[in-house]
């Protein structure tokens, strides 16, 4: 079981080269296959995830959640997806059509791209980049543009406010997000994901870097635009923020992308702070799934408990608290490493 996926990939490459294909081309085809597999898994996973969130939020609120379609209401998301697909696709006449239509696509493409570097098991990265962690951060920061495009393209004051909020929020929270991961990088001495996982074979970084973990958790929630930081959407104030004018599948794409981001960030958190795919008895790819889902449940619990923060509080929290704390953490980590090295570790 452990090496099932890896062996399959090797077999595919061997078969392709056996057909007389140049090794470079075979690798390219493998990459495409892996990519498609990731997209399929992500989308299937999200149907489960949306069901899970509705179920968990139901339990939190002492409700039952969806329970009509299929066992425990598991097919509810699929039914919703079919409904959204068959809905009329409305493009309001005063919108900036090009931007309005491309925004959801840009968003979903960016969020799927995040999965390239996440190790989903022992040797199961699509590409093991030497700058993997940095890749994740910088690609993740691109989703600002998608939200801004949605906000501007909708030509609606609520949407524009939502777009503006998302820019302010995401740019501010990128900084503590990157800084909090820097502590881990300093200990590992590498940006490569496989190195980070390997460095945690003895002890998880959540123990070594608790401050970094907390700052990362908070700023990741803000990056994901999830409650209590769901400024761009903010149903109660901005009606639906940047998504106000979207209908049918375009709207669904936004949600798909949001959940894709959510899973990616949770998986990264599991990789960077909770030992990645490492774990006893079970196959490695099962471990990362378990860890990711546990983290996701914490995200759910937080979203359904807290009220939304005010925009200016949100900004000052980032600039006046999170950034100094994450900088101090870097200093602390550096000093710690220096001391330990002097002691002869």
């Amino acid at each position: 079981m452990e090496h099932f996926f890896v062996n399959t990939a090797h077999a595919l490459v061997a078969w392709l080269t056996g057909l007389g294909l140049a090794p470079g081309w075979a690798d390219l085809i493998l990459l495409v296959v892996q990519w498609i597999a990731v997209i399929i898994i992500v989308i299937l996973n999200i149907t489960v995830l949306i069901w899970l969130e509705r179920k968990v939020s139901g339990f939190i609120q002492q409700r039952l959640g969806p329970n009509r379609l299929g066992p425990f209401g598991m097919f509810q998301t699929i039914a919703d997806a079919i409904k959204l697909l068959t809905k009329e696709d409305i493009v309001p006449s005063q919108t900036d059509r090009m931007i309005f239509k491309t925004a959801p696509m840009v968003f979903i493409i960016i969020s799927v791209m995040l999965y390239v570097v996440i190790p989903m098991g022992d040797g199961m990265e699509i590409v093991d980049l030497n700058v993997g962690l940095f890749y994740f951060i910088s690609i993740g920061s691109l989703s600002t543009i998608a939200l801004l495009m949605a906000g501007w393209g909708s030509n609606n004051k609520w949407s524009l406010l939502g777009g503006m909020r998302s820019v302010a929020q995401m740019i501010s929270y990128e900084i503590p997000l990157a800084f909090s991961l820097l502590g881990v990088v300093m200990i590992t001495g590498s940006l490569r994901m496989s190195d980070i996982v390997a460095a945690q074979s003895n002890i998880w970084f959540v123990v070594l870097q608790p401050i970094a973990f907390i700052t990362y958790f908070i700023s990741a929630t803000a990056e994901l635009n999830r409650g209590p930081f769901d400024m761009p959407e903010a149903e109660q104030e901005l009606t639906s923020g940047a998504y106000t004018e979207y209908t049918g599948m375009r709207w669904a794409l936004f949600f798909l992308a949001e959940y894709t981001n959510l899973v990616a960030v949770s998986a990264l958190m599991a990789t960077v702070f909770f030992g990645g795919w490492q774990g006893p008895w079970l196959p490695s790819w099962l471990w990362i799934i378990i860890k990711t889902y546990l983290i996701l449940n914490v995200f759910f619990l937080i979203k359904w408990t807290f009220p939304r923060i005010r925009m200016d509080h949100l900004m000052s929290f980032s600039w006046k608290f999170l950034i100094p704390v994450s900088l101090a953490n870097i200093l602390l980590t550096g000093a710690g490493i220096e001391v330990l090295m002097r002691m002869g570790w």
Partner: protein
Amino acid sequence: MSLNDIVFIALAGITLLAALGVVLSRNIIHSALFLVLTFLGVAGIYFQLNAGFVGLVQIMVYAGAISVLIIFAIMLVMDVEPDQTNLFNQSTPTIMAGGYVSVLLAAGLAGAIWFTKWPLSAVQVGDQGVEKLAGMLLGPYVVSFEVAAILLLVAVFGAILLAKGVEDK
């Protein structure tokens, strides 16, 4: 034509087309968004040159910068129809001056590229790029690095002061 060439041509094509889009769009927001695409294309070329770190810095910095640019565009041209925010200037002297500058620039660049001898290094950058970069920035060039950082910080403060204004006592 190898795989590498195909990728390069695709990336260069996207970059050039997007750059044309920046210049020719009548809507300033579209221009800014094309600029994002241009930078992404350039980042792709960096990746192809095995300079992944630089490429990612390009993406990260410009993603943020462009969104801010768009916001400025929205703020500055809000009263105009969006389709007329990035029109060509019709006066002859401006066109003349612009043409002169661009011809000069093109000639200068072409000359520089033509006459420079591009040395081919035998050293493979490989996977150690980031470490080397870090070593350089925090080693020999630490002073200039810090000076640049402070300069940027001052610029940020200046911008905030300009935007918010100083309250009269």
